[in-house]
C-alpha cells in the first residue's frame, strides 16, 4: 500500500492562482465575436392575463435585432422539466416565456436581442403590455383553503402535491405521554444570492452542427440532456460548458427558461447570444429556498423521552415546478427524526401553488427545515419540562453501537457517534461555565443566551444518483482526471488531485482535473447535495485504482514476474524482494501507450473510467453551540461565541472542509437573523435588491471555533460523508435556540425567523409592560 501523503493534508487550492489574478473565466468574461445581448421583459404583476403585447416599437429601435414572445415560441421550445416520483404531482405547463397569462411577478413575457447590452435594456421600455389583473394567491396556507382563487385553471385547486409517511403507534404514544408539546414554525423563503448571478452564452456552429451553451450551472450534463429535448435537437449536437461558476448553493442546480431561450436564439439568429441576469431579476426569477409553514407536536415522558412526533406542513411551491421543486419538501419529512430515537412518527405534507417564484434546492434543501423543527421542539420540551437542553438530547440519542440506525421515517443512518460530538462541543464551549455566567449576568439584568443544535443531515446523493470519473495517464506520465462533478468553489481540482496522487504515487503538480464540460467529460450528474467528493471523488478513486492495477499487470509482464509478486509503492512497481528491479508508473504509461503490455493481453493506453453509485446516503452530524447577548433596550443580538464540532467522516483536505463549514454556518446565520424574501398580499416582491435583502456582512460576525470528530462512513471506501451543507443545517437552530434562551426571563418561548431587533425589542417591551401591569 502506498503511504498516504496527500489525503488529509492542508493543501493550498490549485484553482486559486488564476482567480486571485482576476483571470478566471466566468460566463460574462467570455467574449465571442459578434455576440448579441439579450434582455428579458418581466411581468410586474403576480397574476394577470396578458391582453395585448406590442413589440413593434422595440423592434424599430436601432440596434435591436429581434424580439420574441411566448406564443411565437410555443411550438419551438418544450415546457420546462421537473423531476419527482410522486403520483399526486400536478404539473402546470411552464413555458419559457409566458403565454396568455403570468403567474408570478418576474415571469418572462418577452425577450429582446440587440447589438449591445444597453440597447437591449432600452428596448424593454418600448414593449407595450396590457395586463388584466387576476386575484392573487400569495399565502400558501390560504392557497389551500376552499374558495381560494385557483392559479392554474387546468386544476381544481392549488394543491401541487402531497406526501405522507406514518410509522409506529402514534395514538398510543400520545396517550402514554406525560406532556404534549406543540409549536408552529415558519421557515421563511430565502434567496440564494450567489454573487455571480445566472449567466448564459450560446453559440451555434451550423457547419459542425454544434450548439454550445456556456451556463453558470452546477449540472452541465443534466442540462445538456434537457436542452436537447427542449430544443428538439439530437443530444450529440449539444455541448454544455460550466466555466468558472461564481457560487451556486443549489440555485444553479436547475434548468431555467433562459438557458433554453438562449439556445433557441443562437440556433435561429446564427450569432452568439448572451444573457447576464441582473440582481433584481435574480431575486425575482432565480429559485428561492425553504418556504414552509408547519406545526410540530411531540409526545414526551416527563424525563424527556420522546415517544412520538407529528408534523403537518405546508410547502410554498410558487407558481411552477422547477427541476427539483417537488423533491425538496419530502427531504424535510425524511429527516425529521433528527439524531433521536422516535418510535412513532407521522408526517403530512401539502404543497401549495402560490403566485411567486418557485422554491427549489437551496443549501441544505429540506434538511435545514427538518433540523430546525426537531432542534426547536427539543428545546421547547426542555423548557416545558424544566430540564437542561443537553440532558433531553442525550436521553434520546441512539448509542454509537446502534448504527446503522433505523429511523421511523424509513432511513438507515450509516454511522454516527452523537454523544462524542456533543461532549466535545460542550467541553470546547465550557458549557457549565457558560451556564453559571448566564445566571450571574441575568441577576444583573444582562441577557446571555446559550443555544445548541445537535444535527444530522442526509447527503452524498445517493442511491439513484451516480457519478462518473475517469483517470488517464498520458504517455508523458502526466495524469488527467475527468469528473462529472461540477464544482463551483468547492475546490475539487485540489481534493480530487489529492486522491489520485495517493493512489498512483504521482505528484500533485502532474495531475490536472477536468470538469464542467460535456465535450470533455463523457458523463456526469454534477455538484449538489454534498455529493461531489463522497460520490464523484469515489468514482475518481476507483478509476485510479483500476489504472494502478492495469499498470501492475503491464509491470508484471515487463518485469517478467507474476502480478502477485509486483509491489507498488510511491509510484513504483518493483519485484517483491528485489526493490531495485522496478519501473515507475510513468515508464509504464509510455509503454502502455505503444503496445499495452506487448503480450496482446492488455489493451493499449493506461486509462480507466468508473461510475460510482453508493448503496446508501451518508449522514454527517455534529453539535453547534452559539452564545448570544440580547440588549432589551434596542433588541440587538450580539453573537458572542460560536462553537462547532462537525463530523463529515474522513477528511481529504481540512482547509477546504473548514472553508465549507465557515461559509455554511454564516449562511445559516443569515436565515436565523437577517434574511427572508418578502412578498406582499398582492404577490409583489418587497425586497428585490441587495439594498433591502440582507445577507450577512463581515461585521457583526464572531470568530468561529471549529473542531471535528471523525466517524468514517461505511458506504464508500474512503469513509467520506460530505460537508457542503452541514454548516447551514447545524447553525440556524443553534442561533435561534440561543436567542430564545436569552429571552426566557421575558417568558418568550418562540419567535419566527428572521430574528430582527424589531421583533425582539417588541417582545421585551411587551413583557415589561405586562409585568408592570401585573404589579399595578
Amino acid at each position, binding site marked *: 500500500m502506498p503511504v498516504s501523503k496527500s489525503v488529509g493534508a492542508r493543501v493550498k487550492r490549485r484553482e486559486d492562482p488564476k482567480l486571485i489574478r482576476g483571470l478566471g473565466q466566468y460566463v460574462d468574461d467570455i467574449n465571442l465575436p459578434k455576440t448579441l445581448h439579450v434582455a428579458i421583459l418581466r411581468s410586474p404583476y403576480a397574476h394577470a392575463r396578458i391582453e395585448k403585447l406590442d413589440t413593434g416599437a422595440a423592434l424599430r429601435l436601432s440596434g435591436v435585432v429581434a424580439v420574441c414572445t411566448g406564443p411565437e415560441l410555443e411550438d419551438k421550445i418544450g415546457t420546462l422539466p421537473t423531476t419527482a416520483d410522486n403520483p399526486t404531482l400536478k404539473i402546470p405547463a411552464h413555458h419559457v416565456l409566458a403565454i396568455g397569462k403570468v403567474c408570478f411577478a418576474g415571469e418572462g413575457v418577452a425577450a429582446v436581442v440587440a447589438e449591445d*447590452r444597453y440597447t437591449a435594456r432600452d428596448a424593454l421600455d418600448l414593449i407595450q403590455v396590457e395586463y388584466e389583473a387576476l386575484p392573487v394567491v400569495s399565502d400558501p396556507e390560504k392557497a389551500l383553503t376552499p374558495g381560494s382563487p385557483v392559479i392554474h385553471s387546468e386544476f381544481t385547486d392549488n394543491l401541487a402535491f402531497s406526501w405522507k409517511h406514518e410509522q409506529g403507534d402514534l395514538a398510543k404514544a400520545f396517550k402514554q405521554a406525560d406532556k404534549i408539546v406543540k409549536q408552529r414554525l415558519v421557515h421563511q423563503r430565502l434567496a440564494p444570492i450567489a454573487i455571480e448571478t445566472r449567466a448564459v452564452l450560446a453559440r451555434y456552429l451550423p457547419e459542425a452542427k454544434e450548439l454550445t451553451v456556456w451556463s453558470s450551472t452546477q449540472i452541465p450534463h443534466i442540462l445538456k440532456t434537457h436542452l436537447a429535448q427542449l430544443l428538439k435537437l439530437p443530444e450529440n449536437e449539444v455541448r454544455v460548458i460550466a466555466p468558472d461558476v461564481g*457560487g451556486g*448553493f443549489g440555485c444553479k442546480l436547475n434548468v431555467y427558461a433562459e438557458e433554453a431561450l438562449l439556445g433557441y436564439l443562437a440556433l435561429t439568429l446564427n450569432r452568439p447570444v448572451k444573457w447576464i441576469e441582473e440582481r433584481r431579476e435574480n431575486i425575482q426569477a432565480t429559485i428561492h429556498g425553504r418556504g414552509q409553514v408547519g406545526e410540530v407536536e411531540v409526545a414526551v415522558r416527563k424525563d424527556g423521552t420522546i415517544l412520538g412526533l407529528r408534523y403537518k406542513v405546508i410547502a410554498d411551491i410558487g407558481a411552477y415546478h422547477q427541476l427539483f421543486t417537488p423533491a425538496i419538501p419530502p427531504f424535510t419529512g425524511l429527516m425529521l427524526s433528527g439524531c433521536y430515537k422516535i418510535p412513532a412518527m407521522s408526517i403530512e405534507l401539502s404543497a401549495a401553488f402560490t403566485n411567486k417564484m418557485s422554491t427549489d434546492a437551496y443549501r441544505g434543501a429540506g434538511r435545514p427545515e427538518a433540523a430546525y423543527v426537531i432542534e426547536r421542539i427539543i428545546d421547547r420540551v426542555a423548557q416545558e419540562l424544566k430540564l437542561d437542553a443537553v440532558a433531553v438530547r442525550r436521553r434520546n440519542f441512539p448509542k454509537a453501537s446502534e448504527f446503522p440506525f433505523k429511523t421511523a421515517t424509513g432511513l438507515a443512518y450509516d454511522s454516527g457517534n452523537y454523544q462524542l460530538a456533543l461532549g466535545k462541543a460542550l467541553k470546547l464551549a465550557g458549557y457549565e461555565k457558560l451556564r453559571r455566567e448566564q445566571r450571574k449576568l441575568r441577576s444583573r439584568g444582562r441577557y446571555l443566551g446559550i443555544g445548541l443544535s445537535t444535527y444530522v443531515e442526509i447527503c452524498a446523493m445517493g442511491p439513484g444518483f451516480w457519478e462518473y470519473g475517469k483517470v488517464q495517464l498520458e504517455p508523458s506520465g502526466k495524469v488527467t482526471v475527468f469528473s462529472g462533478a461540477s464544482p463551483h468553489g468547492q475546490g475539487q481540482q485540489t481534493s480530487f488531485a489529492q486522491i489520485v496522487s495517493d493512489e498512483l504515487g504521482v505528484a500533485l503538480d502532474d495531475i490536472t482535473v477536468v470538469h464542467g464540460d460535456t465535450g470533455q467529460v463523457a458523463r456526469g450528474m454534477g455538484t449538489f447535495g454534498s455529493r461531489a467528493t463522497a460520490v464523484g471523488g469515489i468514482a475518481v478513486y476507483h478509476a485510479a485504482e483500476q489504472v494502478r492495477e492495469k499498470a501492475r499487470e503491464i509491470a508484471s509482464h515487463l518485469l517478467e514476474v507474476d502480478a502477485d509478486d509486483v509491489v507498488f509503492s510511491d509510484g513504483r512497481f518493483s519485484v517483491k524482494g528485489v526493490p531495485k528491479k522496478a519501473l515507475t508508473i510513468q515508464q509504464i504509461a509510455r509503454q502502455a501507450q505503444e503496445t499495452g503490455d506487448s503480450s496482446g493481453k492488455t489493451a493499449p493506453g493506461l486509462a480507466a473510467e468508473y461510475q460510482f453509485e453508493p448503496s446508501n446516503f451518508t449522514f454527517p452530524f455534529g453539535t453547534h453551540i452559539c452564545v448570544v447577548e440580547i440588549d432589551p433596550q434596542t433588541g440587538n443580538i450580539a453573537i458572542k461565541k460560536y462553537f462547532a464540532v462537525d463530523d463529515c467522516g474522513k477528511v481529504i483536505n481540512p*482547509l477546504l472542509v473548514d472553508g465549507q463549514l465557515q461559509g455554511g454556518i454564516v449562511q445559516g446565520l443569515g436565515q436565523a437573523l437577517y434574511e427572508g424574501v418578502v412578498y406582499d398580499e398582492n404577490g409583489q416582491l418587497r425586497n428585490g435588491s441587495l439594498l433591502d435583502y440582507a445577507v450577512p456582512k*463581515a461585521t457583526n460576525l464572531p470568530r468561529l471555533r471549529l473542531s471535528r470528530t471523525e466517524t468514517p462512513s461505511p458506504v464508500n471506501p474512503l469513509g467520506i460523508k460530505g460537508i457542503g451543507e452541514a454548516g447551514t443545517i447545524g447553525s440556524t437552530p443553534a442561533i435561534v435556540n440561543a436567542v430564545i434562551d436569552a429571552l426566557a426571563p421575558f417568558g418568550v418561548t418562540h419567535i419566527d425567523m428572521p430574528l430582527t431587533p424589531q421583533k425582539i425589542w417588541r417582545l421585551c417591551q411587551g413583557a415589561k409592560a405586562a409585568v408592570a401591569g401585573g404589579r399595578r
Partner: protein
Amino acid sequence: MKASSGKKSMDGVRKQKITLRINGIEHSLEVEPRLLLVHFLRDVLGLTGTHIGCDTSSCGACTVMFDNMAVKSCTVLAVQADGAELLTIEGLAQGARLHPLQEAFWECHGLQCGFCTPGMILSAYQLLMRNPKPSEPEIRHAIDGNLCRCTGYEHIVDSVQYAAKRMKRKDLRRR
C-alpha cells in the same frame, strides 16, 4: 420571433473622448456618456477581472482603485474617470510575482468561487494603504461593503491579517 428591419447606426449619441491610466498603461478612447466604468473596463478593454454582482452598488464585486480610493465601478461613469489613475486586479501582481494580498488569499483559503475576490482584495488594498496594521474589527469594517457568500468572511479576515504582516511599503506604492 420578429427580426428587425435592421438599421444599425447609434444615431444621436455623441461620444466623448476620455484619457486615463489603468494599471500603468494609458488609454485614450471615445465612449458613450452613459457607459459605466465597469462596462468600459470589461467590455471595451477586456479587463474582465472586475466583476458585477448587483445593480445597486451593494456587493462590491466591481471594486477598483480610482486615484488611490477603492470605488465601486458600477456606480461611476467611464467619462468621470477621464484623467484618472486606475488599478484593477489585473495590475496587482508584478509579472509572475503575486502581490502579498494575493499570496495571502491563496495561503489562507480566502476564496472559494472567486467571484467576489478581486473586489475584496482591492478593498483590503485600500485598508492596508491607510492602515498598515489593522485590528480585526477594522478589517471587518473595511470589507463591509464587499459581499461574499462562500467563505463566511473568516478566511478573508485571516488573509488580510496575513498580508498585513508581510506587506512592505513598495507593495502599496501610488500608481
